[in-house]
């Protein structure tokens, strides 16, 4: 079931033991097992049809399951920078060469940009290629970077680090943007060019031809009740068939997860490693506002062996707005770590607090991001489709920029597809077109060069000196040698396998939120504007309902209650008898995908909820 090599010996023993132990007699030397857990009655958590198929469910007998189908030339899943750039490039080529092309884009958010979250410092290289006249078109790039600061923080002090030209973090020539607004603008440009954009409809299923190639996608069904039964308003999703389907779901997409398995796309690369980024928008005191200023820090409150850092950007959009946030690498080992509370704690550092004092928080959000870079790039083309953007993961980690590479990957995909899709005779072996030229184009482009040059910076953190070792490595090998060293360092392996058992780690004492600089989780979640239709099966599905208490809580003290930035997972006492149960508050979910990544049992499978559910970010 679970690939044996990926798990620690302890975890393997637990998983094996779980299968044999039915009653309360647990071998005490292996793990702390609450005697009463297995004998108490656990309420069922998961009711989603991906775990409990509907063709075997008597409640679904006689329900019409036929789907309406439509044909397009290209279908794009995901309305982010990659998906929209691909759509725009396709339509630009179609206009140039006077060919007809039907491009359909589906997006799970209620409007384009509502699920977009990023720092963000945009490098305009890809945008200059896509729209050389972006300024006349009104692209919301209003804040050129004027100042660039980098610091190492200790609990009370700040050590400035000079931002020399040539260092990956140097931001000269870049713009601070509100990526949600930028993506919304891209959406408007795409619609003007004739792309059919359908926000509020999530791609829930990949469809296959008989020969195994991808035929297209199906959107989500609506009107399923919380217990998995059909409601009166039940409607089947729609099928969109295409010659090629582009998957641009962003970091750790749920359909991409399926495709990796189906087409074995990850056999020659390392497993992807991730980080979680949490972000807030603040309106600050005008006297403290320095539009164009970019601040990054590492160090406190994280220890030297936990990868992460902060960003604080001063936007120039009329009011004194700052975008700030905190990133924590998901290969952290201490299950007591809470990325949300580290973020809140960081804001109390004197250097940060002095900017935020007297200000008001107006937005909050969180999302996982890729940290793997070059070593973790999978095969990106397969019969009938391809992966673009952060889904395969083109983020340049030390620069902390992935938008320009995502956009470029979408554009390269479009350029590779266009001749094939408009050709009279596609000459393809499979019904869905296989276009390996996309991967060749990627390898020849600046994306590949960029990612290759910085490939060793992130893995260099895995040494005894942690952060400091990594910084020394960056200084020597990147700044001086430009990444030309002949070796390629490896990452530590799957993020979910990095957690140490709770009894080997010390709980972290986090300060209580003060309501002025730091805040509690639930008020933050309210600010994200997230909501879902309440009466639907929880979209955070568990392959096995008993594992959270048996494994996650017993060995790791329930890390999901700490790493989820929206308070979805809670261990609550059972109503009758002793012991705890997992409660999933699916309505809070902000679609960050951290749980799917970091769950030590890899039992949580995030699937897409009914379309238009999720956060309502406005320019995050």
């Amino acid at each position, binding site marked *: 079931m679970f690939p044996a090599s990926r798990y620690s010996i302890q975890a393997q023993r637990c998983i094996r033991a779980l299968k044999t132990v039915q009653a309360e007699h647990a071998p005490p030397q292996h793990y702390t097992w609450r005697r009463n857990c297995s004998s108490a009655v656990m309420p069922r958590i998961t009711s989603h049809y991906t775990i409990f198929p509907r063709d075997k469910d008597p409640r679904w007998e006689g329900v019409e399951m036929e789907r309406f189908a439509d044909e397009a030339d290209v279908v794009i899943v995901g309305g982010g920078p990659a998906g929209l750039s691909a759509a725009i490039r396709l339509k630009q080529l179609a206009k140039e060469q006077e060919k007809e092309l039907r491009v359909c884009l589906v997006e799970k958010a209620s409007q384009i940009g509502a699920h977009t979250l990023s720092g963000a410092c945009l490098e305009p290289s890809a945008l200059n290629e896509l729209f050389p006249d972006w300024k006349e078109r009104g692209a919301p790039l209003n804040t050129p970077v004027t100042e660039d600061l980098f610091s190492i923080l200790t609990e009370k002090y700040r050590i400035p680090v000079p931002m020399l030209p040539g260092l990956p973090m140097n931001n000269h020539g870049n713009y601070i943007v509100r990526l949600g607004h930028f993506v919304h603008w891209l959406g408007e440009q795409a619609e003007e060019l004739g792309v059919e954009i359908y926000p509020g409809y999530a791609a829930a299923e990949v469809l296959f031809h008989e020969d195994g190639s991808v035929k297209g996608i199906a959107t989500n069904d609506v009107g399923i009740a919380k217990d998995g039964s059909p409601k009166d308003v039940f*409607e089947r999703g729609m099928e969109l068939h295409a010659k090629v389907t582009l998957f641009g779901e962003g970091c750790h997409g749920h359909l991409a997860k399926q495709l990796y398995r189906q087409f074995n796309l990850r056999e020659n690369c390392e497993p992807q490693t991730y980080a979680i980024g949490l972000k807030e928008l603040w*309106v600050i005191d005008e006297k403290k506002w320095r539009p164009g200023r970019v601040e990054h820090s590492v160090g406190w409150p994280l220890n030297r062996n936990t990868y992460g850092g902060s960003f604080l950007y001063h936007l120039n959009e009329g009011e004194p707005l700052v975008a700030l946030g905190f990133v924590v690498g998901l290969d952290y080992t201490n299950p007591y770590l809470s990325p949300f509370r580290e973020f809140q704690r960081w804001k109390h550092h004197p250097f940060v607090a002095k900017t935020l004092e007297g200000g008001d928080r*107006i937005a909050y959000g969180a999302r996982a991001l890729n940290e793997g870079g070059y070593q973790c790039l999978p095969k990106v083309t397969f019969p009938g489709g391809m992966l673009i953007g952060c889904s395969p993961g083109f983020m340049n980690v030390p620069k902390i920029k992935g938008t320009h590479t995502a956009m470029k990957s979408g554009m390269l995909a479009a350029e590779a597809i266009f001749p094939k899709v408009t050709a009279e005779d596609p000459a393809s072996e499979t019904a869905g077109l296989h276009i390996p030229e996309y991967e060749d184009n990627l390898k020849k482009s600046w994306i590949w060069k960029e990612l290759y040059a910085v490939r060793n910076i992130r893995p260099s953190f895995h040494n005894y000196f942690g952060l400091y070792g990594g910084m020394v490595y960056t200084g020597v090998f990147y700044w001086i040698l430009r990444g030309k060293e002949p070796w390629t360092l490896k990452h530590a392996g799957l993020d979910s396998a990095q957690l140490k058992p709770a009894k080997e780690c010390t709980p972290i004492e986090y300060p209580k939120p003060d309501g002025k600089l730091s805040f509690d989780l639930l008020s933050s979640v309210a600010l994200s504007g997230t909501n879902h239709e309440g009466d639907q099966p929880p979209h955070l599905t568990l392959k096995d309902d008993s594992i959270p208490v048996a494994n996650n809580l017993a060995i790791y003290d329930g890390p999901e209650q700490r790493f989820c930035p929206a308070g979805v997972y809670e261990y609550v006492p059972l109503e009758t008898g002793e012991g705890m149960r997992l409660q999933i508050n699916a309505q809070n979910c902000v679609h960050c995908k951290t749980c799917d990544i970091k769950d030590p049992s890899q039992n949580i499978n995030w699937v897409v909820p009914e379309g238009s559910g999720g956060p309502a970010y406005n320019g995050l």
Partner: protein
Amino acid sequence: YIVTIRVKPDHSGVVTDGVKHSMNPFCEIAVEEAVKLKEKKFIKEVVAVSCGPTQVTETIRTALAMGCDRGIHVEVSGKDYEAMGPLQIAKIFAALAKKEEASLVILGKQAIDDDCNQTGQMTAALLDWPQGTFASEVTIDGEKVKVVREIDGGLETIKISMPAVLTADLRLNTPRYATLPNIMKAKKKKIANMKPADLGVDMVSRVEVLRVDEPPTRLAGVKVETVDDLVAKLKANGTI
């Protein structure tokens, strides 16, 4: 509809830029009822109307996807849109109802952004038509409509003659989802475009918004041990 509302820095209103707008939930119920009446063959055609800037065409499309036959977009934008209130909308609806020779005007009972609960009633008054407001059940019986209304005391059943104005309350029905194939088909349905001036409606508002503020933050309460303490505290803050 879960969006975090922020007051504009100049206190003239709330920030609406970039905020996702969607069909008012009570209006969704009204559209659903109209489509149901058409499916039961009581009415021949359903026209969806919305007043506002270009973005409202998306909302009209959703109504068309739910089953309406055609749409009318009354274009109001800029200062006129900010000042637009129930009276102006009621005047527009009254003019349209006469122009289209409608037998029924169905609206949501109130909009969840301003909670005015006035548009339906004003429309009926301007048209001099009977009104069935807070409807939780609507039945058409020949030339008359039987409406069960939700009132404070319980349920009131009235019979009114058509043409009439009805406003939908929560329990009238459960709106259907606008599915993607229907959205695609709705792109082919017509949405007519017009301005208030074409209907002879003047948009001048009789109401001027002076200031918008957030509600004051609730102060913490204080627990007292004895009655004397309570009296002392009340005296201290000037209440008694």
